[in-house]
């Protein structure tokens, strides 16, 4: 019980902090290649080949190439299909469809906008889902070694928690992608990996539901969760290899209140995860006792 309260409290606290803390002002840099994960703190120059990403660079100087030449100026505003640059000669609007490439320069990249708020929620849930997956795999292994039912129960509950958190991760991820890049989906490493993970977790439950025999069900589930947990990190790293021009998000540094909020959020989410686990275990245990009693009564 205390855990639940603790979990809920922390969650509440973190929501409060979330709204209290200033809009995050941390920089994150888009790199066109996957080979470097350098954090830009100083001057940078970025070549962008996907016009759709231009609206993200409002306030920066850019040289935009179109079919009929180049426009240099500061990106003043953007709409769904055009960016407006203020050049020496005044403002000029460039349709995104005409843009072939652009070079953006700046001294520090920061993006103040609401989309970032989701980050506080998104990253912790993503981390917890991965953690829970690991926990499930751990219990799975212990079950395989000992064949004791309680390990299977714990593994299953951990997987349920994983399912919950990973669904949250996907939803917030999609929202963030939309807010950050203007598209609803992108096959970038993290999103793709989490998508695969979602499939793995769903697969776990599909597998369990399709097996009649209890012990076999537990065994199969355990085996699959172990394989899945090995697969997830592999997927992540390999998706980064895709030779495409899609940018990758690299995280920059966090300062001050943002950092605090972030850490509080993580702890809060961890506690929420744990509370969920315990609650559900309690529920399952009660159910089991009822079943047990029923069995004994029949005897």
């Amino acid at each position, binding site marked *: 019980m205390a855990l639940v309260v603790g979990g809920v409290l922390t969650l509440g606290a973190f929501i409060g902090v979330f709204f209290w803390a200033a809009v995050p002002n941390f920089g994150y840099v888009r790199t066109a290649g996957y080979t470097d994960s350098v954090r830009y703190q100083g001057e940078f120059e970025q070549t962008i080949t996907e016009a759709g990403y231009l609206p993200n660079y409002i306030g920066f100087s850019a040289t935009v190439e179109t079919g009929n030449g180049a426009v240099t100026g500061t990106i003043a505003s953007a709409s769904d299909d055009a960016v407006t640059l203020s050049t020496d000669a005044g403002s000029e609007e460039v349709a995104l469809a005409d843009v072939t490439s652009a070079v953006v320069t700046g001294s520090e990249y920061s993006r103040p906008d609401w989309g970032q708020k989701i980050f506080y929620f998104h990253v912790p849930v993503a981390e917890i889902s991965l953690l829970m997956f690991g926990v499930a795999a751990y219990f799975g292994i212990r079950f395989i070694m000992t*064949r004791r*039912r309680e390990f299977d129960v714990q593994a299953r509950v951990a997987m349920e928690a994983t399912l919950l958190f990973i669904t949250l991760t996907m939803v917030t991820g999609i929202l963030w992608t939309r807010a950050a890049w203007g598209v609803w989906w992108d096959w970038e490493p993290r999103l793709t990996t989490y998508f695969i993970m979602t499939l793995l977790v769903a697969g776990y439950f599909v597998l369990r539901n399709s097996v009649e025999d*209890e*012990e076999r069900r*537990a065994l199969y589930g355990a085996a699959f969760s172990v394989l899945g947990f090995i697969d997830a990190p592999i997927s992540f790293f390999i998706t980064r290899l895709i030779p495409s021009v899609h940018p990758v998000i690299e995280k920059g540094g966090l300062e001050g209140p943002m950092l605090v909020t972030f850490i509080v959020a993580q702890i809060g989410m961890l506690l929420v995860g744990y509370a969920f686990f315990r609650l559900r275990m309690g529920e399952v245990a009660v159910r*089991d006792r009822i*079943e*047990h009693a029923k*069995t004994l009564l029949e*005897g």
Partner: protein
Amino acid sequence: MPAEDGQHMDAAPALAVSGLTRAFGVRKALDNVSFELPERAFLSIFGPNGAGKTTLVRILATLLAPTSGSARVLGLDAVQDVVELRRRIGLISHSPLLYPDLTAEENLLFFAEMYGIGEPQARVTELLEAVELDHRRLDLTRTFSRGMLQRLSIARALLHRPDVLFLDEPYSGLDPHAMDILDGLIGQIRGNHTFVMISHDLDKGLELCSHALILARGRVVLFEPREAIDERAFRETYRSTVGMGVA
């Protein structure tokens, strides 16, 4: 040290089961089963569906592991000495355990190889003749009738000359001719083999056995040598357990 040759020790049992339990959570398929069976005995196991008969046999045949307790077959532990034990036991089950796309002969040769039998061809021929399937040796097993499959299955089980034979309802689905052949075969090798048979046929089971075991709900209801059994009392007990169903 487990005794390989029973002659050197008094009454070294072919089967020694002690406190055997197989449970998952609360459900127990087998609950503290204990008994001993001397060599060259014929044990008939009776009991209602779900009593744990098949589970018991599968544990003894090394196909399943118990949750607790021990089972020793021919002095070998069914969990620790698995590989060694498998060479000395055979199982005949409801399914024929044969490859449908191979011929009878190929099937037997394949398993002969698995068991590492010397001079496989000779042994295979010998067995094919014994089960009266020699004339069908080159036919695919998928074309066989149930009786023939069962006979071939027996041949397969006997390839490696096991000391203990487990039979899981071997007579079910057989026509009288096949039943006769099976009877004949069992009669032939009875002398120096130990048998464990699960049967729903009370008469047949009692007729063949030297010991009888009744299981219900995973527990031993009765375990007696044949001589000690009063038929009527036995049938009474049996009938009363049949109503007991699954745990």
